[in-house]
């Protein structure tokens, strides 16, 4: 649906993005990750035809963003990061205006506006001017204007920024519900958001592509060994030596000593071993108490930091 080839954008001598290549399949939700100033917005602005690239190509639904700009723009719903809206217009009037510009049929426009306002939870503010709305509602209006012509491609630049937790959950589930029928590119620097909503992640840093994969694969690739936190009630020395004896365990250490001899231990297993199952039998045999046992997966945060900082060392 979206093909980006060797895209480069220079701002004078400063570099926006450098040789970025990726594709997005139809119906996919792609997360765009990167620290501030990495080039996320630049890439999105090129795909949405707001500005042309210095070199390289981008195509949306087979149309080149530079050659067939109007065709591309008909198929895109875009929500810029700052959510720029006309503050002197009422919500439905604004949506009708945008719908008209985006080619929604005049006879269908009222019902379309009604539907989008339902979807985005805007019915409570139908009488208000956009300037009077809170940040969260403006964000929803921004999303509503992107959705008004039922576009095939949605490009959302940090769509959940500035929302309260309840709204974030609502917007996320709305975006998740959009996948399948529509292709979505979503930029963010909130990492859990990506693992929650996106099927694939692109990590971009200093204008260059660092990684493209599913969040699960990224985790698997970078994680060297499996770790567990285990909280056991029992004599510390004995626990350390007994657990250390298990042959799949490579390392045991006290992570936190608690009261009454209940300590948290960090247990590291050898690579490719399913070690978790070996611990409970030992505890049962020794008649200790098991309070907690959980695996520590490598979070997207760790991956992100790792990739972005590794990148800097090169």
């Amino acid at each position, binding site marked *: 649906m979206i093909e980006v080839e060797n895209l480069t954008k220079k701002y004078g001598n400063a570099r926006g993005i450098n040789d970025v290549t990726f594709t997005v399949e139809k119906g996919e939700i792609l997360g765009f990750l990167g620290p501030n100033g990495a080039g996320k917005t630049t890439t999105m602005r090129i795909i949405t035809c707001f500005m042309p690239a210095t070199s390289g190509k981008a195509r949306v639904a087979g149309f080149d963003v530079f050659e067939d700009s109007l065709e591309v723009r008909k198929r895109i719903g875009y929500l810029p990061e700052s959510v720029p809206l006309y503050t002197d217009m009422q919500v439905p009037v604004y949506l009708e205006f945008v719908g*008209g510009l985006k080619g929604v049929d005049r006879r269908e426009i009222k019902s379309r506006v009604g539907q989008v306002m339902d979807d985005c939870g805007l019915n409570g503010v139908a009488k208000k001017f956009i300037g009077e709305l809170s940040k969260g509602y403006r964000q929803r209006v921004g999303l509503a204007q992107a959705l008004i012509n039922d576009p095939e491609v949605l490009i959302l630049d940090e769509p959940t920024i500035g929302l309260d937790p309840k709204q974030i959950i609502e917007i996320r589930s709305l975006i998740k519900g959009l996948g399948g029928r529509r292709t979505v590119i979503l930029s963010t620097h909130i990492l859990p958001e990506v693992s929650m909503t996106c099927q694939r992640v692109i990590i971009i840093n200093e204008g260059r592509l660092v990684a493209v994969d599913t969040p699960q694969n990224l985790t698997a690739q970078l994680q060297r060994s499996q770790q567990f936190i285990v909280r056991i009630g029992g004599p510390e020395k004995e626990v350390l030596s007994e657990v250390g004896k298990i042959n799949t365990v490579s390392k045991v250490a006290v992570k936190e000593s608690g009261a009454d001899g209940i300590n948290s231990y960090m247990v590291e297993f050898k690579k490719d071993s399913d070690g978790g199952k070996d611990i409970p039998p030992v505890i049962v045999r020794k008649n200790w108490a098991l309070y907690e046992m959980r695996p520590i997966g490598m979070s997207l945060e760790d991956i992100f930091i790792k990739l972005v900082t590794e990148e800097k060392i090169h």
Partner: protein
Amino acid sequence: MKNFFLIFQKELRSYFNSPIAFVVITIFLIISGYFFYNIFATFSTISFQAMTNAILARQYGQLNITEMVVRPFFANISLFMLIMLPMLTMRIFSEEKKSGTIELLLTYPVKDSEVILGKFAGCMGIFTIMILLTLPCIFLIELFGEPELGVVVSGYVGLFCMGAAFISLGIFASSVTENQIVAAVVSFGFLLIFFMMGYSAGFASESIGDVLKYLSFMPHMYNSFAKGVLDTEDIMYYMLFTLFCIFLNMRSLESKRWRG
């Protein structure tokens, strides 16, 4: 065409959703009404004196209401337009640039020309309302005297042409900056220079002087429209001026895209 109309409608509405249109139109009407009163009062005083004093009447020569009231009336209005129209046009693009709405507007499936012409037409709409509201002054002249209606019509045509030129230059100035004050100052400054360009014609060589005079707004208003002369040369002058500014405006939007 549909997009042009939508943008035109939106521009008109946003003028009336904010106090801009009301304030600019009201102040404009107060000033032009005040000046009109003074011109008219002066004329009636002179006429009264001439009626009672034969010597004075000979000194004044012919007292013509078209020459002495209608013509200065249009001349004054064109001067107030010079001050007021930059206030209407300054926000057109700079506000969109500042608030970032231009980013959305330019990613909708709309041509740059539709955006510019729609905005231009919206502003022309407000301006037309503004000058048509000065018609009561004409009715007053009509009530107390016998002005030539041809001059009135050509005067309004002239104001309309001149307004189009002022507005196109103002919108262009607004498209090069995101600061409204800068846009207003630049358009006011350039309008004033074009207004008074013929001023230095007398000091320049004959050929340059002619060019300066031709480029100036003033001779294309006072020596023609305000006298009741509808000359294609003057109409062409304002049309070309307007088209040139709209052309510059399109280039400035395009360069905005390239520079990001």
